[in-house]
């Protein structure tokens, strides 16, 4: 079995983030359990929303940040949860650290890691498990909570309007305030899991606001 290349890792990571977001929505009860269907992914049952709009939203967000991940420009992808008064409650943060610097002319396909897919799959399964476990650590969410997915970039980028024509993906919009990091400062942090693939380290944790 060939070791995963860097572009494989990027693909797997972005796919996993999509899966995990569904899982978070399910576990945290942001939508009624009925709208989720059980699927098999990473050799383990996962829950996926059946609502086309939700699916499209998540899909588009992840697709939009995939390029960013490729260029190692995505700092974090987070699922932020607000209560009905728009007060922040908690957020799941997928932090992506890349210690690894590619020279611009280097092709990501040519970079391989030592990671094999079964090993990585195992790790990703552990992530999903930890998301489930987080439910027992975190306080239950207030009624009528809402969520949004936010992508933190390393360097400022301009939303690509052309992207829509090419990929059918809705271009992303800048987040409301640049200070959203402050919203969650002082909160409690629950580390969930981290994995290092050599080219990309993913670290998942939850920040929970103290009321």
């Amino acid at each position: 079995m060939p070791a995963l290349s860097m572009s494989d890792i990027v693909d797997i990571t972005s796919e996993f983030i999509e899966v995990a977001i569904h899982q978070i929505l399910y576990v945290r009860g942001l939508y009624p359990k009925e709208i989720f269907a059980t699927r098999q992914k990473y050799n383990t049952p996962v829950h996926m929303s059946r609502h086309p709009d939700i699916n499209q939203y998540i899909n588009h967000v992840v697709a939009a940040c995939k390029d960013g991940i490729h260029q190692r420009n995505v700092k974090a992808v987070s699922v932020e949860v607000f209560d009905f008064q728009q007060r922040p409650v908690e957020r799941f943060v997928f932090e992506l650290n890349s210690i690894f610097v590619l020279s611009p002319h280097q092709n990501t396909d040519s970079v391989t890691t030592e990671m094999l897919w079964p090993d990585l799959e195992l790790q990703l399964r552990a992530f999903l498990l930890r998301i489930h476990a987080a439910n027992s650590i975190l306080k239950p969410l207030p009624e009528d909570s809402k969520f949004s997915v936010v992508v933190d970039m390393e360097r400022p980028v301009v939303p690509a309007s052309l992207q829509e024509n090419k990929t059918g993906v809705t271009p992303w919009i800048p987040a409301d305030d640049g200070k959203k990091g402050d919203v969650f400062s002082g909160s409690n942090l629950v580390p969930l899991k981290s994995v290092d693939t050599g080219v990309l380290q993913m670290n998942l944790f939850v920040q929970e606001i103290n009321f």
Partner: protein
Amino acid sequence: MHNEQQQSPDDKTYDSIRFGDFKSYMERKKRKLKDQEQLILAASDEKSEIFKGLIIYVNGYTNPSHSTLKKIITTHGGDFQHYLSKSKITHIVASNLTNAKIKEFSAYKVVLPEWIMDSVEAKVLLPWQNYRLNSPVEVHQKELSFQTQTLSSSSNPTVDSHNKSSHLPPASSIPKEESKKANELPPQYLARSPKGKEVAQITGSELNLSLLSNDWARKNSSINPEFLDKYYTTSRLHYLSMWKAELKSIVTKLRIRHSSQSQRRKMPRTENSKIMHIDFDCFFASVGIRDRPHLQEKPVAVCHSKGVMESSSGAVASCNYVARKYKIQNGTTVGHARKLCPELEVIPYEFDKYKEVSEKFYEILFEHADDLEPVSVDEAIIDVTSSITDSMTIDEFATKIRSEIRESTGCEASIGCGSNILLARLATKVAKPCGQYFVDHNSILEFLNPISVYDLPGIGYAMGEKLNRMNLKTLEDLRAYTMKALQDIFGKKTGESLYKFARGIDDRPLSSGQPRQSVSAEVSWGVRFENDDQVREFVLGLCKEVEKRLRNVGCKGKSITMKIKRRKLDALEAAKHLGHGICDNFSKSVSLEQYTDDALFIFDEAMKLLQSYHFESVDIRGLGVQIQKLDNDVGKNPVEEGQSLLPYKKKQKVENEVTSTDHAPEEEPDIITKVDDTIFKASSSTSTSKRLPMEVERQAFHELPMDIRKELERVYELIFLAETNEHNSSSENVIPASLEDDLHIQHEKGNVNGTEIIHQVGDKPTKLSTKSESLPTHENNKSVSVPYGTTQHELPPWSQLNPTDLLAMPDNMRAKVLKQYSEREQVAATKKRPISPSQSHQSPKRPRTKRTPGPKTPTHQNDSIGAKRSFTLTQMFPPQSPSKHRSAVNTVDDLSEWDPNVLNELPAEIRAELLDEHRRQREQKHRDLQNQLDSAKTLATTLKSNPFTVVSKSEPALMGKTDISSIRDMLKAWLLAFSNEPEEEDVETVSKYVLKLARARNFHQAQLVVQYLAMLVNQEFCQSQESSEPIVVGSVWKLYVEKLRKQLDREVYDIYKCTLKWQC
């Protein structure tokens, strides 16, 4: 003006205009301007109707000015247009047009202002065709021929231009492209100037005809079949260049002979290096004067021609300083020199003498030089660093060399010295004539300040011009610029070297062994052909010459370049007799499938290249055949080529050797130096039984100095490796050698052994030298405490390495460099080990009587189980590879349980097996260490060549463990072993581990570790609350856990401004 106009009564022309009513504004403006014309007309008295019916527009700057033209045109009946309305106008007047305008106006009659002026003068409208604008942009040199016919042009421009293009000289003499371009031009703008000169088209055949009518010229030009042979026997330049090639080979030979000296030059260039640049003063002239004492005080020049006539074109090759006073320089033509100094004595070349002098010169230099770069017959750069001592200053040394040169050759040489090539060369300029100059390291800047930028190497005419424009004259001026600024202006490389040169920095090595890049034969004098056969003959001759040269240097080439000088089509006969004159240079190359040195094969390719140009043979003024991509670059002698490719390879082997087999000695020396003497003596009695095994090759061992061997004997159990040598193959594979034995052997074999060693060195240099180098390295470390990596001194520290340099390297070289670095890092890690907490039991405060590291001393572990305070967490869990299973731990323990005495009594093969196992364990550990090399190595991976594999950054590990369950086990055992209070060092180890996890963003694991520890502490001490003692003791643990938790919290807070949520 506006006011004036307003006063004149008119209709609405002078009414105010509504805002935005641009149309009426323009209309009225035009009307006003017409009114002005009427005024002008009324004012002037000389009226005529010359321009009647013409509507003229003047574009751009003209001479006479726009307003003058306006006045003239209006007064002579023309209609002057202020605005270009293309439908109305008949003529456009302009003296200059941009390309865009030329295109735009291509359908109009564009004339020069002179047409107006001349017409007025002549009082009749002149034909405008003669005044067509000839735009400078479109002028081609090749269009000279057009002008010849311009004067006879008819009034029909279209037919005219067609005629001209059809009158072009034969296509073969003008590159097709250009003639095509000319045809595409709009007819009106083809070159024509009213004052065009008549220049006859010069044809090559005519020129040749006149030249070759001279018998001598015929004999001496390329149409003579013997021309090439004759050329090569008489050409001065050819002679000199061949000499240099010969010189190079002599230098290489001498270097091999003085191989010990070439070793010395591997020392890195420092400010203490002493480089000398030695240059004869006007070499040719002084050699000539030497044998003509009567010329001593007279101006003398060396030239091939006697130069009786002023027009004599031979160049002065060298002239003495007396002649230089008359402003005669090398390169001045003899005729001119004669004018400057009528009593100038001209002497001919005397090649034999030059060669003789030069040989003597180089002989002297070889005696003194560590390294030598031959620059030319009379000039060389040598490295004399090792010759300069306290008793021999560089000045004295230079004087010595100069007097030796004087005695031996009878000529004067000047010497410049400095710490690098640049300074030495610049110093020579000061030293001349007949002197010496040493640039002291402390006064480099003062020395450099007044020096002109033109004196720097690599500054030619173009660069000098550029610098001049920037008003940079001296190095002092240059130093005002930052490297960035210089790089911006001159490009990356040049900028950097300028920056460095301005500061007297020059790290170029002496390039003595540069391999040949190309072999060529070129002739640009006397090349005249009458037909293609002669060309073929000539090229064949060149190819044969090239073949001869290739075989002389013993290489073959893969690329053929054909160089052609073609007479510039308008050039007259060259000023220099039979010279090439003004030429266009062409060259084309072709890459071959395989290396060749075959003349006929080269000839075929060369002819194809030449024919592809379709030049007329009569126009060829120079031909050259060059062979590049020689096979000596690639395989033959890589030593000579790259900077230091081979040393890397070699060193690498040494390192491998060290890491794989000689691991124990690597760390041992450090420890030995620490153990104080008494302990050493005390333990020496037992040392025979506890010596560590070390594998050595007997021959390498024998090559060591006696005292080192003794010490090795004392410290290690020496195991001699099986030797490949026939002679020794009879001896046992494993000998626990004692010094007595060894000495005995040595005695017996005596000289025989010694000679054998030398013989072997010759046979398999790599292997033996590797061995013998690796051992002394340890010894050096031990006794003189030389910093680690003595074998790697050629590499700069990692921190000083410029990443761009790395990137600029070829891939395979970069890989090697990086490997070298990572290995060095590895060695560094090994060296540091004894100080790290995991080896803390070796620290002086707890003298252990033994110098063997903890995990390897079985007796200790067994003994110390009773005494709780004497072992630590780290000892309990010797670092293990995360991948290794628990069984591995057992084997370690198993081995450790062997009493060394028992071990010695075991049969040899069992013991060998055990030791082997032991060694493997150590290697394993070593590999772990390697895994932990983080930053430098991570960077290294990023720079690796494309494509490559990224090694996952090693996870932080506690005692080699990374999985949480084994860490838990370890923590538990630790707590149980130290139920009173934890060891300071262990606490630190665990804290460090937790923080490392946090920094690697693995908060989950960090939290788990801390939580588990907290839980353990709670369990342990809350349960035994009844007794009073554990409370006190347990509190230390609790404090510690609390501290750890706070540390982790702080770490998290620093990153996320959040605190961890603890669940317990």
